[in-house]
């Protein structure tokens, strides 16, 4: 009824996406950049992170590439604030960013390790998602 219910809704959506995306990137960085050996539960966690990240990227790409295409259910999976923040962050580099994200998705699908360049573009998404969650939190607390 008040603005705060809507802000709380936005915060919950943005924070959940930021948390999930960041966790998946962190797990994959350990394995692919730091070459940490993973076994048992940790191996399963990395596999889960890879699948989740690929699913989130698939949805994100659909939204970022949207040019008046028919509605897709993927669009509801990515908070609108996050999409706007990514667009603002990459500005004129959007086509290049989309290409890079598409490459990361292909590597995740094939099971190939991700390199520094891949993590650089993933970090841009992490930062944009984090910024939207923090901004919503500040609005929620009026600070």
């Amino acid at each position, binding site marked *: 009824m008040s603005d705060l219910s*809507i802000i709380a809704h936005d915060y919950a959506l943005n924070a959940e996406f930021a948390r999930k995306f960041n966790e998946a990137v962190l797990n994959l960085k350990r394995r692919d950049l*730091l070459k940490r050996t993973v076994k048992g539960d940790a191996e399963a966690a990395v596999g889960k992170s890879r699948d989740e990240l690929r699913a989130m990227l698939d949805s994100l790409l659909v939204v970022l590439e949207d040019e008046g295409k028919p509605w897709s259910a993927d669009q509801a999976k990515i908070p609108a604030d996050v999409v706007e923040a990514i667009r603002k962050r990459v500005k004129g580099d959007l086509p290049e960013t989309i290409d890079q994200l598409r490459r990361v998705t292909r590597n995740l699908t094939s099971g190939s390790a991700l390199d520094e360049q891949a993590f650089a573009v993933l970090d841009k998404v992490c930062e944009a998602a984090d910024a939207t969650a923090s901004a919503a*939190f500040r609005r929620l607390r009026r600070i």
Partner: protein
Amino acid sequence: MASLLHSLLLDLKRRGQFVLKELGTLETTLPGNFDKHRIEAANRIRRAIVMVDNMLIDPDLANPHLEPNFFIDFKRLSELILNIEDSSLLILKRCSPEDRFLSGLLKLICDEVKYSDPPPLCGALSFQYFQALMEMDIIMTPQTQAGDLLALPDLYHELAHFIVFRQRSILEVRLLGLIHKFFADALRRGRQQGLPLASLESIEDNYALWIGSWHVEFACDMIATFWCGPAYGWANLRLSATRGDPYQDSVTHPADDARRAGIACILRLTGANKAAEEIDRNWEDLKRLSPSPQPSSYMKRYPGRLVEQVGECIYQLCTELGFQSHSEQQRSGAVVGCAVAGAWGAFQRDAAAFPAHETAALQALRAKVAME
């Protein structure tokens, strides 16, 4: 020397432990539903502390590749602990008779409407009308809400925020899909007709508002109307009467007049046509008392057909989710549902005599809550 992040994590752990200790001091002092909330809040803090501990002993914490990601994790955990301190701890420490009554009432409402999750906790601590805090499972109400039966329908609206958030995988896909299609068609037609750029941009602006927050507010109004019936329409009229221009909107909320149209759609779909007409007549009277010119772009901002489509979609979802409509609740003698409908009936029959009705109705509700 420890890194900044290491120090921040130690500070966060200390803050978490402090909130946990405060929650611990309330053990054995709280009634059942409040204690359940306390246990859940304490468990969330414990899980957060474990995550902080894991980061503190992580050999890669200071690795430049990973440190920014750990910092993002730190922020989310910090927000969680602050949210628990600001909302859960606040309500639990107070746990006033009003908070207990409203929480009990909300539990009854949840049973009556067939809300399947555990009922949120309610605190009459808001200084900004009603607020739904989804992540905390809390609804804040105005401080005098425990004594205001006519505003009780707004509690149904806040409960609906939990539905819209938690059922978004079903609800948003359908709702946003139809909103997207509606405006995509309008844009295509506009281009075919050679509309000026400003008109096409205006369609895009309206689309962004609907897709942003307006669909959430429309959906919450409509679910609340499905549950609460004409009483929600009357409560909306009463609230709108205090807010001025019925055509004024904001990024977060559609215009009151458009919300009235959305509520009317659900009333008609649930068979309350007569009440919908009566509310519309009073709405016209309200506009007569406080004349505001309808903006020229108003009908393009709130196309009647789109409001109807959203209404049909929400009605369908309410049915699929197994919710009890207001008329089903009346038939089954739902205590709160009948009390709210009865309060609005009594107010309309004789507003001057209403205080006596309200006192008696609240006494009966308090007795029912106390028995639960």
